[in-house]
């Protein structure tokens, strides 16, 4: 098996380019690889087109840091606080830069990623009829040719990320990875992407992943880099591993209310630590409180063949 392990810093440097279409976390409010958010900011990536259903405050941070040129998605904000202050500043005042907003709903962005993953020429969607979202100029209106009377549908083109960055509970060195709990659009985003980076809470022996091939989210042959970052999803939760650090989101929300506060927050949590390891160290005992210590194991599943 090809060893695809690397540092997150190297993975972001070599696999994410300015102006790329990027999915960073696609499980909505869980399993968001914030370590990659911070690394994109530290490396000063620019003009990214962020595709997401909901990635909690991650996109707001990237916007404030000047990494984002466009939003292609359903929601940008801060789940704890509601509004995203950086998103507001960019959209309302062009601070730090203007951004293009391509509005989707969660289901339509999902179908667009599905269409790319499964090679569909487009996805006909009904769930955005009547919404301003249907006026997204990249969509087309059509009639359902199977309907007896007029039945409008919206044709949504495939959305093919240049790079998808996903967090998982565990992966092997080849990028084969296990995920459990709700996954939002992670599988579609992974299969649709040109390049895939896996941020693993833990790198495990190949045999662990091979023991349960039905728990694989994205197979290793579709993965370009796998990085072990034990608290790489903080402050978002990760099923069976980490609780959500809601106080951290609240603090971010309060401090990002003005530009200076946001810059101070960035210095404190992104630039000063400078690496996932230093960030983890800074969190210190706070991480111990967030770490899930209990054990409620899935019932055994047997794969023996004789």
């Amino acid at each position, binding site marked *: 098996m090809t060893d695809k392990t690397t540092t997150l810093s190297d993975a972001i440097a070599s696999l994410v380019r300015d102006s790329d279409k990027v999915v960073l976390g696609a499980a909505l409010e869980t399993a968001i690889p914030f370590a990659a958010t911070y690394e994109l900011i530290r490396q000063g990536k620019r003009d990214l087109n962020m595709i997401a259903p909901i990635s909690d405050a991650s996109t707001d941070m990237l916007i404030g840091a000047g990494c984002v040129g466009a939003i292609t998605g359903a929601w940008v904000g801060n789940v*704890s606080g509601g509004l995203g202050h950086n998103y507001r500043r960019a959209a309302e005042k062009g601070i730090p830069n203007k951004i293009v907003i391509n509005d989707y*709903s969660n289901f339509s962005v999902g179908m667009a990623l599905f269409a790319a993953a499964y090679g569909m020429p487009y996805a006909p969607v009904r769930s955005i009829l009547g*919404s301003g979202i249907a006026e997204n100029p990249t969509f087309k209106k059509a009639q359902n040719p199977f309907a007896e009377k007029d039945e409008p549908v919206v044709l949504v083109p495939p959305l093919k990320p240049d790079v998808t960055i996903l967090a998982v509970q565990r992966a092997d060195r080849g990028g084969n990875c296990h995920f459990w709990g709700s996954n939002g659009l992670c599988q579609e985003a992974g299969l649709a992407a040109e390049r895939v980076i896996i941020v693993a809470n833990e790198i495990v022996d190949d045999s662990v992943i091979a023991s349960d091939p039905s728990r694989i989210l994205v197979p290793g042959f579709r993965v370009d880099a796998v990085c072990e970052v034990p608290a790489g999803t903080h402050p978002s939760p990760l099923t069976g591993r980490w609780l959500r650090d809601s106080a951290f989101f609240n603090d971010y929300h309060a401090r990002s209310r003005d530009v200076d506060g946001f810059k101070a927050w960035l210095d404190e949590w992104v630039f000063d630590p400078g690496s996932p390891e230093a960030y983890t160290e800074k969190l210190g005992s706070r991480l111990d409180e967030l770490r899930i210590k209990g054990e409620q194991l899935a019932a055994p599943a047997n794969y023996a063949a004789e």
Partner: protein
Amino acid sequence: MADYSTQELMIIAAAREIRDGEIVFVGMRLPITAYGVARMTHAPNAVGMFEGGVVRYAPAAETLYTMCDPANQRNAAWTTGLLQVMGHLQARKVDAGFIGGAEIDRFGNINTSYIGDPAEPKVKLPGSGGAADIAAMSKRLIAIMNHEKRRLVERVDYVTSPGFLEGGSSRADAGLPDGGPSAVITDKAILRPDAQGELLLSSVHPGHSAEEVRENTGWDLKFAPDMSETPAPSAEELAALHQIDRDGFWR
């Protein structure tokens, strides 16, 4: 005065909108609590869906900060993908959906995207998330808002989540299936649509007056012919709510 808070009344009013055996798009905060009350009272077989890819029978015992928290995953009825769950909407299997919003208008259209001109917005709101899909495809939509003149407006600046659009046949003309808001539950009242899709004042919460509600509404709010007072929570309803809301968050 009353032995319940306004928010408790809103939760219980929302719970009453859920029928037994229904599939409900639950959302967070107030609606998820309403779902819990419904399960414990008149709707023990209701199924709750969360767009991240979670389906639950019994609501999680712990306080949730987001629908994807570990406590919502554990012992769920299903943890899967967004499409598997939201596909139930487009396949018309979802009976009721709950959403909130920054603005709602006379015909029940909801805006969570842009205040002001979308090209030069005064306020950029977070956007649809799944709200547009839920509003379009649920068999019934229940909206929950605070009753303020700037929130209940004649016409929303942007239709994120379609209600009855311009009223009359306009929802059907847009290709939308039957549905639309069946109730708008505010901190002062419950509005319901007439046959043309215009929201009328259906019931006024105890302690408020119809005139007060009208004054806090941004259009010329009409009264439903059968307008009444919102029934106060029953002892059984309050007991269920208190059992869920052990910390008294909603009191």
